């Protein structure tokens, strides 16, 4: 699919939105290996980084699932690869008839893999299930949807409890992945027997080993889909995944750590793809208790880190410094907020002195045991030492340490971790910085004005108005230093030269639309 076709299918609102972000799109440095005419056929073999938590998008929970869900489930709304701006998917158009009513027109002639037509009834069934099914993990995503009504054979109307312009973005993620109502009604649990309306239909899933999907012949965009199928070999050890691509057993390994870049460079038969993502490495603060309940200490940390050096040392250039929770190519990025925390050890020391933090003060931080995390910790320990702070990291597995920090134990003052990003930034900011959010470790009060500013980002669907609203949110979050964003880790993929038409996306969760294999 060429860029022009894509543009032609956009609504006027989308086109305007895209135009406003044209500058951002130009920043992408990803080589699209799209030379030549696409050839039909072949099975793409992907080294997948984790066993999925479930193949039912509503009951699963891991961010690593999406890359396996996207080929099987088309979403109501899709996003632009470079900016994540919403664009039509299964919903060919939508509009807010008033701030609390979203009308979506569903494309006609689309069927699920079991032949069930994808109509307004099916969409209503899916959204209702997401809100009510006991095992649904996305109830919170659709919290503002009060009711869903079918207002035509191919039209649904969502009544909202409050204005929510983030919904189109939300419907491009799990909540927008449409599942066949027939399949759900038949068995109730489709975790291991997924039936969607995507380009590929499910064949088999062997736990921790392999997922096989094959092309769905009646797919509505069948002529833009070239492969016969995709096989995901589950290889959690990323270095092993890279070796499987170099040895020619797989075609793609994705979301690789930066240190694999050198390995890829040495391998003669490998193409690299990379591009910005919303994956943000950051230090989470527990701002409900000392020392991070003092804004001066949080600010000092933000001034103490030298982000440029951090990126160079830990990401080998495959990334960019993070000054907020959005990367510079994102449509809602604010260049002014990015100037708040230049690297300034003197200022950091002064702030610490003001807060009565003695020299040599021990910071009780939590981290993970993997090699890349340790490397990040070493850099930070060094940088904190320069402002008189002694960082002490307690490390463990991701599940264990995250639970210890965010869960009821409330261990540690800060956690060196990451935020994987969401299609709509309002989700990111709401999940990270709300009073009762899991990621607000202390469930502590948020700065005055933040909830209102967050609500404002959802009040209007006008992209410029939203950008302005996000600038306010980002300013409040960063002026209060509720976190210390460090770096955006760029997507790094290893591709066999046979793979053509692959493009990384800003979400950092690879999609395989338009990919074809050279024989």
């Amino acid at each position, binding site marked *: 699919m060429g860029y022009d076709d894509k543009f032609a299918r956009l609504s006027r609102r989308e086109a305007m939105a895209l135009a406003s972000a044209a500058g951002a799109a130009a920043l992408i440095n990803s080589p699209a290996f799209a030379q030549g005419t696409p050839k039909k056929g072949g099975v793409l073999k992907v080294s997948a980084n984790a066993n999925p938590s479930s193949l039912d998008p509503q009951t699963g929970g891991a961010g690593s699932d999406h890359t396996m869900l996207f080929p099987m489930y088309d979403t109501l709304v899709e996003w632009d690869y470079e900016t994540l701006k919403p664009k039509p998917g299964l919903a060919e158009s939508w509009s807010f008839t008033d701030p609390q009513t979203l009308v979506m027109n569903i494309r006609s002639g689309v069927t699920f893999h079991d032949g069930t037509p994808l109509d307004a009834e099916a969409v209503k069934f899916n959204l209702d299930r997401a809100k009510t099914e006991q095992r649904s993990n996305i109830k919170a995503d659709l919290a503002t949807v009060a009711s869903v009504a079918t207002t035509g054979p191919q039209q649904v109307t969502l009544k909202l409890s409050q204005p929510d312009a983030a919904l189109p973005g939300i419907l491009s993620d799990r909540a927008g992945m449409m599942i066949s109502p027939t399949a759900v009604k038949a068995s109730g649990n489709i975790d291991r027997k997924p039936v969607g309306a995507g380009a590929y239909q499910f064949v088999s899933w062997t736990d921790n080993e392999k997922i096989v999907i094959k092309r769905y012949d009646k797919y509505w965009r069948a002529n833009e889909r070239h492969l016969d199928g995709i096989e995901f070999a*589950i290889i959690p050890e990323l270095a092993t995944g890279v070796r499987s691509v170099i*040895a020619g*057993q797989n075609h793609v390994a994705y979301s690789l750590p930066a240190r694999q870049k050198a390995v890829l460079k040495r391998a003669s038969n490998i193409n690299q793809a990379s591009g910005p993502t919303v994956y943000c490495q950051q230090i989470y603060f527990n701002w409900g208790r000392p020392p991070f309940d003092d804004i001066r200490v949080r600010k000092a940390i933000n001034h103490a880190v030298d982000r440029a050096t951090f990126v160079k040392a830990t990401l080998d250039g495959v990334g960019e410094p993070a000054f907020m929770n959005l990367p510079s190519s994102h449509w809602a990025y604010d260049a002014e907020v990015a100037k708040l925390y230049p690297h300034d050890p003197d200022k950091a020391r002064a702030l610490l002195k003001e807060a009565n933090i003695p020299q040599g003060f021990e910071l009780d931080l939590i981290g993970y045991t993997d090699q890349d995390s340790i490397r990040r910790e070493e850099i930070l320990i060094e940088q904190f030492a320069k402002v008189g702070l002694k960082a002490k990291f307690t490390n463990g597995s991701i599940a264990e340490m995250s639970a210890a920090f965010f869960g009821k134990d409330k261990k540690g003052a800060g956690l060196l971790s990451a935020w994987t990003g969401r299609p709509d930034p309002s989700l990111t900011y709401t999940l990270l910085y709300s009073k009762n959010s899991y990621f607000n470790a202390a469930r502590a009060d948020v700065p005055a004005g933040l909830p209102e500013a967050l609500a404002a980002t959802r009040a209007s669907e006008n992209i410029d108005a939203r950008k302005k609203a996000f600038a306010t949110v980002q300013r409040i979050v960063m002026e209060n230093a509720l976190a210390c964003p460090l770096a955006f880790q760029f997507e790094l993929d290893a591709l066999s030269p046979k793979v053509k038409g692959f493009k990384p996306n800003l979400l950092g969760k690879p999609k395989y639309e338009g990919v074809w294999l050279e024989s």
Partner: protein
Amino acid sequence: MAQGSALAMIGRRLLQAAPVIVLATFIVFGLLKLLPGDVAVTLAGDNATDERIAEIRRIYGLDRPFLVQYGVWLWKAAHGDLSQSILSGEQVVTSIARCFPHTLLIVVMALGLALLIGVPLGAAAAARPNGPVDRATMTLASIGIAVPNFWLAMILVSLFALRWNIFPATGATAFSVSPTDAINHAILPALALAAGGMAEVARQVRGSLLDVMSSQFVRTLRAKGLKTSTILWRHGLKNIAVNLLTVTGLLFNRLLAATVVVEAVFAIPGMGGLIVHAAIQRDFTVVQGVVFAMVIVVILVNLVTDMLCAAVDPRIGR
């Protein structure tokens, strides 16, 4: 060994196995529960709220007292039901049946390699103690024991898979699907595993043979004019059979444990991967199931080893 005493021995061993299984699974269960975090956090997904996590604990019975949870698991296991994975919903028995053959193949091949190379090396070393062959063998054995198997695995991959493309770098094929392909996939992991075993077998064989060679009956054999090599191969090896069997049994169990790391390097979907993945996610039914299966395998291996020893050396059975 009389047939009756053999049966009695098997019966006795199986009875002893029961408390071992209970104790082992209880300790593992306790360790899993001591760690912070549980499977509910994973199940709840990225956007989880505290309420959602608590709700999931209720749904899956994770909020019940520790002993109740363990008791329920044990009661089911005693009735042949290893439950299902909390995360994937797959029957644990099915997972084990799928993963164990992969692990077994590597372990058996590694054991075969260790014996095939270790025994002749050890015997050659014992033939001329402190000679050049002995020195070389023992140096090699020291290196074999010292080199970590994951490192050796990566070196093997970079040479045999990436540079020369002789063997596949990752993955596994079920033996039942294609025996040649299965063996082809298992060679590099088996080699990586076997290095330590080879070294150990060589040292044990050398040591035991030297003992035998200095015994009185060997002096008599020499006096009768037998050649050293005849004594070594015909009489020596027969006399160290019990030692060798014991070492082999222990080695088998150790190799089984060592697969955890090697399987990760080669992305083999075996028992190691199964238990590591489950332990990280706190999917305790799977962890318990794997421990259960492993304990049974180890007990069986020990039993078979003892029976073989008794068969080889009649003194043991009595």
